[in-house]
């Protein structure tokens, strides 16, 4: 039992469980799942489906942060990917066909590849600080997305395209399945091969790992490309869910949510230590928090205040100085407790 509490995922998982329970208390049918028209329905499924883009981006962000980097441009990549694919569908002669949808998805993924390669180039080859390198794309990205959409919200009607964000496959939403597939892929690649260890090595000390013969440049390049491709797929999900590309608001603040998910999950912002499972739990906590705010009848606008308090609390709990403080506080009352037992 004590070891269970010491596990680094213990706190995030307990926080998630507490949040879910809180919802169950206020809405008795919260945890129940039901089948309807061959689809699974329920608040839990909603949380997973609405959280899918954030989870996806947070997975990419985890690996970037593991190399001691940060990717602020994911929100802009979401906007660009959605804009590019929707603009393609809207302009194509046969907007409803499956081929058009497939090409549109490929365009989005390639956009992600290119933008990730660009970020990776700035960070690994030019040597710009990650926060600044990705700030460039964060600033210019929404402008590029607006350029693609011509400043309009581009609506599309293509059932195949709509399926990515709103479709079902074997009773489950497709967006959940895509996210799960990316998670398994990332987990297998980083935990079953040496890649994960290499990423951690680069995060702990990039210079030392280069001297040790690691191609740290390629690894850094890879994580930024992975992050941007994840963001592009999330952009597909978001635009497909509303069947429109909104260059201004698609993926707004999603980089903040993703970073938050990573931090809550227990990945250190200082690099070198990461947990993909923790990130998924972190993203669920954020999404559940949003749902809880609705459930409790608090105006949804207040979510941001809650998120701010959660970030601060988690960061404070993670900070070594705060931990030491807590430990000394814990240690102090112990003798008092013993006396009580003696009495």
């Amino acid at each position, binding site marked *: 039992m004590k070891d269970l509490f010491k596990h680094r995922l213990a706190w995030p998982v307990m926080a998630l469980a507490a949040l879910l329970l809180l919802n169950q208390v206020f809405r008795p049918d919260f945890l129940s799942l039901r089948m309807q028209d061959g689809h699974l329905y329920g608040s839990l499924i909603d949380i997973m489906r609405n959280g899918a883009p954030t989870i996806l981006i947070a997975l990419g962000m985890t690996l970037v942060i593991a190399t001691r980097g940060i990717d602020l441009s994911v929100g802009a990549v979401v906007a660009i990917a959605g804009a590019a694919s929707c603009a393609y569908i809207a302009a194509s002669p046969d907007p409803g066909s499956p081929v058009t949808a497939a090409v549109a998805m490929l365009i989005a993924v390639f956009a992600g590849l290119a933008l990730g390669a660009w970020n990776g180039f700035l960070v690994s080859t030019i040597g710009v600080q990650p926060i600044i390198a990705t*700030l460039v794309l964060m600033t210019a990205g*929404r402008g590029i997305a607006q350029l693609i959409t011509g400043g309009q919200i581009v609506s599309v009607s293509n059932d195949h395209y709509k399926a990515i964000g709103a479709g079902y496959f074997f009773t489950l939403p497709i967006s959940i399945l895509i996210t799960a597939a990316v998670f398994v892929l990332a987990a297998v690649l980083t935990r079953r091969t040496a890649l994960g260890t290499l990423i951690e090595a680069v995060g702990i000390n990039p210079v030392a790992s280069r001297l040790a013969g690691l191609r740290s440049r390629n690894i850094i390049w890879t994580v930024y490309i992975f992050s941007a491709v994840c963001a592009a797929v999330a952009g597909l999900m978001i635009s497909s869910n509303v069947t429109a590309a909104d260059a201004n608001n698609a993926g707004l603040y999603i980089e903040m949510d993703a970073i938050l998910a990573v931090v809550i999950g227990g990945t250190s912002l200082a690099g070198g230590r990461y947990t993909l499972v923790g990130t998924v739990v972190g993203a669920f906590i954020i999404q559940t928090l949003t749902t809880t705010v609705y459930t409790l009848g608090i105006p949804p606008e207040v979510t*941001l205040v809650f998120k701010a308090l959660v970030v601060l609390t988690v960061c404070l709990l993670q900070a070594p100085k705060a931990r030491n403080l807590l430990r000394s506080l814990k240690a102090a009352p112990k003798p008092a407790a013993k006396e009580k037992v003696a009495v």
Partner: protein
Amino acid sequence: MSTLSTLSQPSVKKPKPARNRLRGGARYAPTLSTVGLFLAMFAVGAAMYPSFLSGQVFLNLFIDNTFLIVLAVGMTFVILTGGIDLSVGAVVALSMMVSATLLQQGWNAGAVIVLVLMIGGGLGLLMGLIIQYFDIQPFIVTLAGMFLARGLCYVISLDSIPVTEGFFTGMAQAQIPLPGDLFVSPGVLLALAIVAIAFFVLHHTRFGRTVYAIGGNEHSAMLMGLAVTRTKVLVYALSGLCSAIAGILFSFYSLSGYSLAAQGMELDAIAAVVIGGTLLTGGTGYVLGSVVGVLVLGIVQTFIAYDGTLSSWWTKIVIGGLLLVFILLQRLFARKTG
């Protein structure tokens, strides 16, 4: 003590660790290239549009960007210490919301301004304390600050609140005449006064020297016995205070409070500072450079307004491009680290 007095001369920089020091005369190069860029853009504008070459077009750059100038001043201090403040845009919005709401309820303008300055400065101080005493990265703490301030805006109201109070509308309409039929707004004078104060503080006070020293090498600054902790906390408080002032100036300009106002303005402020030649690693840069940086951003906007064919979203792309160019310049000028 003689070394200290030479340090206070702006022309003689105090010794900084080699890793961030610019080579010889290259120290002014980033800022000078910004000035060159600004002059070139103004010349191109004058060549393309005859009416561009007027004193009022130049002064309008200040009038339309008073709030950004004040924000950039605060951000310069933060970035000089090697930190970053992502909360400034949200604090601007919060200041506007608070003042618009309280003025609507009939509060006195002076009291509102004092309260807003206290809120902004207090938020900054709080963030600085958390950054310093819990040793958490500035960007994550100020990110939380941004969430908090923006969330509080939404809590106050989702709608735009008009400002009809006499002092604010008076400030919005006031024009200070200058020779040659030119004019500026009172906000410009306030912004320039803040720039002057910041210039004095950075180059002629112990606090300013400490800011530079922290950015050069925090550990060395600590070993030198400088007040590193206090200075770093104060820098964030200062940035918060500047954001509050910018919020008031923005209220004068827009005469309303709106939760979504100043979205992304932190990026503009950071861009202005970087384009103005301040190194993001800290330790090198000038507050006057940041002002020129704001003017460059302003002239980009003026260009796009003059050229009717370009859409407004080109502004973001051009700013992103300029940011990139100056970051690459920084890499060229600064010695490679690590």
